[in-house]
């Protein structure tokens, strides 16, 4: 029988220590002796600091798993704030009976993604709860990024102005549709993988080579519609999107047609929207396209003076409509 997590793995005693050494320290490269806190050198006056919990169901899906997602998500939250992701803390809540092999696979892909992104997993925690008290495994990651003072305006969109171009780095919604299709309940066979990716290397290139980035946000829950409405609300600017320019992939469109979803509200885990100064947009687009994470980047719309605080979509069929913040729940536990 394969080895399973038991309550004693969360007891704080010998089994906990063994698990930490045999799974986490092995993959994450934590140094002995292990201390209560990681001590970090931070060469900066400002840091970006973020935390996020991951409860995705299923935990393994085409293109990733809960562990990879937990690294990408936190790396991307730091990167879109204009920061250079440096350190990550990872905390695990595991259900009794969870396969240690699965935990090992998850930890290995976290280490792999952290390596790709160039961040260090420096500290963590493990708790085990009784069977039925959580769904297999939940992971919380907390990240620290190094922030240059002159990038601190990006999170707030403080420099946004009419005429700024809106650029996305690829088709939206692949992650959410992959998760929907992975649920047994629906029995759809969709030729798609999650877009789950760390974006910090691409974003770093953009920020190093251009000062024209006025706003960035990753398009997770709520999708493009959520981010654009937040931006419009926060800056009181108007936003105009050309639906025909949003590159939605065929399987995503197909499933949306069947289930009545709007692709513009679907979540991605490796997609960013950038508001770029009009005269820098072409340059930024080219930098993005030269990176593997941004090969399919395109301009999809712009900031306008029309209808402050609202997002307008010029639909590909020729009509016009408002795009509102999505409400309710399309599908629970997509990340």
């Amino acid at each position, binding site marked *: 029988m394969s080895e399973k997590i038991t309550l004693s793995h969360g007891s704080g005693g010998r089994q906990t220590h063994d698990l930490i050494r045999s799974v986490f320290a092995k993959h994450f490269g934590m140094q002995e002796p292990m201390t209560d806190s990681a001590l970090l050198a931070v060469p900066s006056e400002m840091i970006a600091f973020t935390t996020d919990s991951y409860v995705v169901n299923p935990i393994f899906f085409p293109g990733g798993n809960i562990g990879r997602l937990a690294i990408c998500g936190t790396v991307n939250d730091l990167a879109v704030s204009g920061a250079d992701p440096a350190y990550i803390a990872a905390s695990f809540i595991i259900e009794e009976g969870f396969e240690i092999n699965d935990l090992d696979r998850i930890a290995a892909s976290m280490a792999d993604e952290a390596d790709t992104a160039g961040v260090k997993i420096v500290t963590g925690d493990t708790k085990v709860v009784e069977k039925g008290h959580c769904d297999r495994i939940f992971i919380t990651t907390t990240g620290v990024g190094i922030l240059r003072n002159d990038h601190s305006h990006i999170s707030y969109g403080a420099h946004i102005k009419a005429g700024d171009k809106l650029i996305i780095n690829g088709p939206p919604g692949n992650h959410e549709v992959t998760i929907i299709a992975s649920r047994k*309940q*629906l029995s759809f066979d969709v030729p798609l993988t999650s877009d789950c990716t760390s974006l910090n290397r691409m974003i770093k290139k953009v920020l190093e080579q251009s000062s024209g980035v006025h706003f960035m946000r990753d398009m997770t829950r709520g999708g493009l519609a959520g981010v654009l409405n937040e931006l419009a609300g926060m800056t009181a600017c108007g936003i105009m999107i050309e639906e025909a320019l949003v590159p939605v992939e*065929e399987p995503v*469109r*197909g499933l949306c*047609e069947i289930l*009545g979803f*709007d692709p513009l509200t679907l979540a991605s885990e490796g997609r960013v929207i950038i508001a770029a100064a009009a005269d820098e947009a072409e340059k930024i687009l080219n930098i993005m396209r030269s990176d593997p994470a941004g090969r399919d980047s395109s301009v999809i719309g712009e900031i306008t003076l029309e*209808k402050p605080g*609202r997002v307008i979509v010029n*639909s*590909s*069929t*020729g*009509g*016009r*409509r*408002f795009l*509102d913040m999505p*409400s*309710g*729940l399309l599908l629970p536990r997509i990340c």
Partner: protein
Amino acid sequence: MKYVDEFRERKLIMNLADQIRRSVTGEYTFMEVCGGHTAAIHRFGIPSLLPPGIRLISGPGCPVCVTAETYIDELIALSFISGVAVATFGDLMRIPGTAGSLSEARAEGADIRVVLSAYEALEIARSDHDLRVVFAAIGFETTAPGTAVTVLKADAEGRENFFILNAHKVMPPAMEEIIKGGSQIDGFICPGHVSVITGSSAFEFIPRKYKLASVITGFEPTDILSSILMLIRQVNNHNPAVEIQYNRAVTRTGNIKAQAYMNEAFEPCDAGWRGLGVIAAGGLRMRDKYKSFDAGASFNIEVAHNETETACICGDILRGIRTPDECILFASACTPHHPSGACMVSDEGACNTWYKYHLHE
């Protein structure tokens, strides 16, 4: 995407919009009965393509919008019985009953599961013999055959732990009620999916008895614009009839097999529609031979039958007498995030659609 893009071709759409502009000779009010049409009309920005003389109003065809508050209360009462799970379409979760929604009941520990079909609810019952599963059976002729087939299957396998709480409704009597209630309309954009089942013949009383234009319509922008053009021509020529624009899916006789399943499991009955009151022959009830699957008869649940007093004008909106922006609650006390009435909850509800696409216009 094949079989979709063809119906969204911009050139065709502009051409149809142009023909509509040239055909208009006065003012026209058309009611789209089906919630799916309401959603499509606004999603594709159809109103922005129409000349000012054409008014489109929403009708009673959003299934969750016309579901009585007490039905939600009954589901909640069932869901709190130990060993009972309520299986429901996701749309019902946030609909307010007289005391809270299914979503709130679930947070309090009730066993409520979201399913995509009646059959999925039956599968839950099959997989757990100790659980009594109650399927929330709502919807029109589109969902009723699915419920009927599932009940017949459950009967054939002698299943004793599967039930439905039935609130199925049928569309033509509600349309007649709206005409008799004095809605000032020139014609109907008749439901597409309902007609796939019923056939166009179910709507022939409309031009015959009431001299109103009627076109059975598909859900793509070219479908909707073609139908509006057909309606205008019927009105201009004083030649009301039931025309089938959605002819790739709808025939005069409909889906005979689905009708047979429906007739086997259900019979017509008077039914209460939220906002519209009791409509004669507006609903379906389980035939006596399948009564053992009827949760209403099998469980002893009692809920108070007093509808809440509110300024919500959902009833008038469902009748096409008033539009959402005429409600004092609209966009202030009533939003998709905090709905007061059912029309604000469902994606197919008129208020929800107005809120999403028209607010501040």
